[in-house]
């Protein structure tokens, strides 16, 4: 069995982004970039599946500018076997990303594709679901547990109000939620080893995918600021104000 994990290079989780009012876009100058945290969980899960002997090969795929190679190297340093980079000028919208991944799935004949449930930059939460449509295969979003039973995959999903467990035919697309696992840190020897691992490169033209976006981003703005900062000294004052001033209790 082969597992493919698409990983996205995004603004680091801990960076507070700024909107550049002139260009009406996010100011990305000198900003720390990292692997999308949900994708790290997907990488960790793929490696564990290989370590437990259920999977023969693990492949990390990234789509975007040349710096995405660093993100792939991170995945390789965590323990993925090899990498694929589809070089594009910008990070395309989810539908196009799903189409590009689908081409790699066909080439590699991957059985299980594990993705993060959403990227923390555009917050779309679409790519995995879209990929499953293009592959016309089963789908399990927001996974908190993945196990195998004979030739099927059992996934427990985080749904509104609780957990749902479903059984999936292969090939299958799974997206990761927070509690699936805790991603490891790459050890120094593994970082060194990762430098020797292979990263194949493609261009969208090689894969025959039309890169024309279907959505126009007209502008990006700062959200309206909430006026906060009010203080109370005691619980008594708090209760009194909630009752008589705000009228909410």
């Amino acid at each position: 069995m082969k597992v493919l994990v698409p990983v996205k290079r995004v603004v680091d989780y801990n960076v507070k982004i700024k909107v550049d009012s002139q260009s009406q876009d996010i100011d990305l100058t000198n900003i720390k970039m990292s692997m999308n945290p949900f994708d790290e969980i997907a990488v960790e899960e793929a490696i564990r599946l290989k370590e437990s002997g259920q999977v023969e090969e693990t492949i990390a795929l990234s789509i975007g500018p040349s710096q995405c190679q660093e993100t792939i190297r991170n995945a390789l340093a965590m323990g993925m076997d090899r990498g694929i980079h589809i070089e594009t000028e910008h990070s395309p919208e989810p539908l196009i990303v799903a189409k590009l991944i689908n081409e790699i799935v066909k080439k590699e004949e991957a059985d299980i594709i594990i993705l993060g449930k959403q990227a923390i930059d555009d917050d779309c939460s679409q790519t995995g679901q879209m990929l499953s449509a293009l592959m016309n295969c089963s789908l399990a979003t927001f996974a908190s547990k993945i196990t195998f039973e004979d030739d099927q995959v059992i996934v427990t999903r985080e749904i509104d109000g609780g957990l749902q467990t479903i059984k999936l035919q292969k090939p299958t697309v799974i997206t990761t939620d927070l509690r699936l696992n805790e991603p490891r840190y790459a050890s120094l020897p593994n970082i060194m080893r990762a430098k020797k691992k292979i990263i194949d490169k493609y261009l969208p033209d090689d894969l025959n995918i039309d890169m024309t976006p279907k959505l126009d981003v007209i502008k990006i703005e700062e959200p309206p600021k909430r006026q906060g900062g009010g203080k109370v000294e005691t619980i008594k004052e708090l209760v009194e104000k909630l009752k008589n001033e705000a009228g909410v209790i």
Partner: protein
Amino acid sequence: MATLILAEHDNIKLKESTNKAVTAANLIGDTIDILVVGNDCMSVATQASKVTHASKVIIVEESYYQNMLAEPVSDLIVSLMKDYKTLMSPATTNGKNILPRVAATLDVSQISEITAVIDKNTFERPIYAGNAIATIRTTTEKNVITVRTTAFDAATNENNTEIEILNATANPCLSEFIEEKISGSERPELTSAKIIISGGRGMQSGDNFSMLDKIADKLGAAVGASRAAVDAGFVPNEYQVGQTGKVVAPDLYIAVGISGAIQHLAGMKDSKVIVAINKDEEAPIFEVADYGLVADLFDAIPELEDGLNNIK
């Protein structure tokens, strides 16, 4: 052209999030049909027929729709989309699971979690955990949209429209339901609660959340948590309020021992009144709080419980 709304329900009750999606759809201005997919769920269709602005309710019942698995439900919706320009649903786990699968089959890009409708093809949505707002225009013939329910009021229930029964499409049999574990809480759901009390890492343990349970019981509130508290294993993930958890906007949000990480603020900053209780006066949560109390929560919460006794 018309808009089709995928109703959120549990085969018994229509969820209020559907009414909120209807409000967003009404701003687009096209005719609105509500689709109820499920099993043995005529009561849901009857409730949906009362929703203001709806011109028709479509019900499709079949055993394999019982648990809203993505593959059969998206196949059904795709078969209906020739009559509609827009597909909408509230951004619940069902909506998030199913709609992108429909969008890709229709070869259109989805717009996730809109917070405003500018015109038929232009929408606002938060990105970067709500730290920026993007205005997006679609260029395709059809639109697929999920709605962030906290951004829209619920449509009223002053209608009585027809219910049309349609046949199911075939079950693609790609996945199979095994079981569901819904936390059997007496309390309201986080996304519809009028009052929420949430705990963060400052709670120190899962057991200490019982302090918040007591307050919640007094106020008829739901209990939430920050991602830090979920990460620390204090409470299950379904408690999580934040960009990667649930986005809420109750009348009153009480944040206890929550520092106010960006990702948490994104999930609750549209609440009408915010109370923060934290012993660190520098905590960013105070910047968004209407009533901040700098105090040790282990003193303040029992005192709050007593204080609430005195007013009721």
